[in-house]
């Protein structure tokens, strides 16, 4: 029986109620009611869904972060400047999802243009954490993580420029994978920082996040940075086990300031890795302390360039004005506070007289960070770290303190700077709130980190 046989239409699948499935109507009802999380910015109508192919995701609902272009639903990037924008083409990942039989359930909320760690920077209001609605879901892919954690969908796509898939996955208690730079085509992903951006997958389980990764990965002639490398069966890696795997524990990711309950959960996760057959040993990544400043110089520099296109001529809802310069300024006034802050910082670090002091030094630091990983992966197969120093924090707590917000990403930005794959998997709760453990692998080593995450997940599942 298949959708292609017309036994079931895709809209019938999405409107099926019961057995734990959420229909499109369920999502609309939940999101529009008092229990709404504001996880979705747009929910599909049944007529938006077809056609779709036959494949491993046949009939499966998948949500998309709203910085991934779709031509049947609006693409806003969480920004007033793109409110109502409808892309004339679809992202490559959307085409691959349709070919695999997936149904695009809707577009999820995000920090504007992916700039944030809490999804509070959306022009369309914050997303709430389904575990505790007074807390942030993390960001910037907070809508996707919340939609999976709340059971609206089992899988969602996000994007990860400095931890934006892994940190919200950790805060919401689900699985998030940021693959190697070049693993997934970025064609149709609206750019924030092009050398760091990567589409990633979020799933209720390691297997689901891995299967989604397998479907959307692969070379694409429309993205010159996508790699011509075969795509392994990641779904098999999720259950292959870790006998003999060597797991490195980077000392720099376990600072003394970590709360004791957080450290205790991380220690327990290490013990579980050993019990599953792995060997655990300490390693050093000495340039870690420079990762956040390096990241915020490079990411903002690239953002200031990428976002120059929102001028009311090329992109962006034009505001009427007397004269061209005034029109540019008024149109770009639709950017939110955090986007303006990053454009300003990026413009400053690229300006004459400061370029080498900031941008040049940051580029060299980036290479040092990558070199640290090369050295570490000569000794170990994967690395295990916390995904974030804390569980989810309260709404509003850090929104007025940009440096405190930026430090939320202290353990995740290094993977983007080096281009390596990273994964967050739940490792228990602190005070009832989910905590994520991060697995980092060598370039193209997604299968290793998926295997380690699968072993951890299986270990925790045995407890229940």
């Amino acid at each position, binding site marked *: 029986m298949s959708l292609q046989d017309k036994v079931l239409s895709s809209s019938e699948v999405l409107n099926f109620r019961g057995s734990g499935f959420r229909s499109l109507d369920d999502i609309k009802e939940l999101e529009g009611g008092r229990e709404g999380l504001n996880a979705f910015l747009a929910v599909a109508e049944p007529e938006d869904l077809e056609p779709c192919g036959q494949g491993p995701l046949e009939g499966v609902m998948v949500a998309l972060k709203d910085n991934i272009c779709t031509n049947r639903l609006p693409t806003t990037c969480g920004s007033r400047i793109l409110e109502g924008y409808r892309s004339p083409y679809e992202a490559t990942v959307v085409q691959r999802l349709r070919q695999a039989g997936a149904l695009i359930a809707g577009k999820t909320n995000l920090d504007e243009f992916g700039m944030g760690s809490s999804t509070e920077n959306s022009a369309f209001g914050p997303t709430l954490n389904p575990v505790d609605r007074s807390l942030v879901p993390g960001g910037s892919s907070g809508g996707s993580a919340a939609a999976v954690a709340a059971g609206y969908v089992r899988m969602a796509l996000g994007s990860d420029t400095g931890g934006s898939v892994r940190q919200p996955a950790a805060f919401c208690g689900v699985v998030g994978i940021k693959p190697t730079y070049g693993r997934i085509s970025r064609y149709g992903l609206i750019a924030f920082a092009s050398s760091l951006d990567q589409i990633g997958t979020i799933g209720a389980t390691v297997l689901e996040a891995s299967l989604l990764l397998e479907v959307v990965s692969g070379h694409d002639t429309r993205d010159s940075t996508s790699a011509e490398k075969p795509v392994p069966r990641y779904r098999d890696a999720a259950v292959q086990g870790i006998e003999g795997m060597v797991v490195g524990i980077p000392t720099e990711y376990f600072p003394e300031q970590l709360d004791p309950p957080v450290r205790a959960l991380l220690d327990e996760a290490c013990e579980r890795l050993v019990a599953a057959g792995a060997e655990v040993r300490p390693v050093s990544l000495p340039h870690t302390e420079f990762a956040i400043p390096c990241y915020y110089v490079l990411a903002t520099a690239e953002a200031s360039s990428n976002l120059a296109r929102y001028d009311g001529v090329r992109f962006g809802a034009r505001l009427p004005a007397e*004269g*061209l310069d005034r029109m540019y300024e008024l149109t770009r006034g639709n950017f939110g506070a955090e986007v303006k802050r990053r454009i300003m910082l990026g413009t400053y670090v690229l300006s004459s007289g400061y370029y080498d002091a900031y941008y040049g030094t940051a580029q060299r630091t980036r290479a040092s960070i990558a070199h640290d990983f090369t050295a570490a992966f000569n000794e170990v197969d994967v690395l295990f770290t916390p995904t974030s120093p804390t569980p989810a924090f309260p709404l509003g707590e850090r929104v007025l303190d940009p440096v405190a917000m930026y430090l939320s990403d202290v353990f995740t930005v290094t993977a983007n700077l080096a281009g390596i794959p990273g994964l967050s998997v739940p490792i228990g709760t602190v005070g009832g709130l989910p905590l994520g453990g991060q697995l980092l692998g060598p370039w193209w080593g997604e299968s290793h980190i998926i295997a380690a995450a699968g072993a951890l997940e299986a270990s925790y599942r045995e407890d229940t």
Partner: protein
Amino acid sequence: MSVSARDVQRIGELARLHLEDDELKRLTSDLNAILRHVDSLRDLGSTKQPEDSSQIGSKLESVSREHVEGPDKLREMPADFAPEWKEGFFLVPAPPGVHPSGDQ
């Protein structure tokens, strides 16, 4: 390094962002807080030798692979998906002060 309100005003002009007085004040404070943190990068020069940034490319085959000539699929695409397209150009609404004929 730190920035003054006047510097921030100038950066805003370069970035084509008009800043109201309260925005200017807040951004000056925020940028200085961020720059204090970012300035730790300069400590790196005296404590650890930064690497040559070109080394990153050696690990990411996707950005350093050999150039192979082939059909440029992008070349044909804009006309296929552009809302309006004429003689190799996108058509957009005329900006203020610009007449469709091209005369100022």
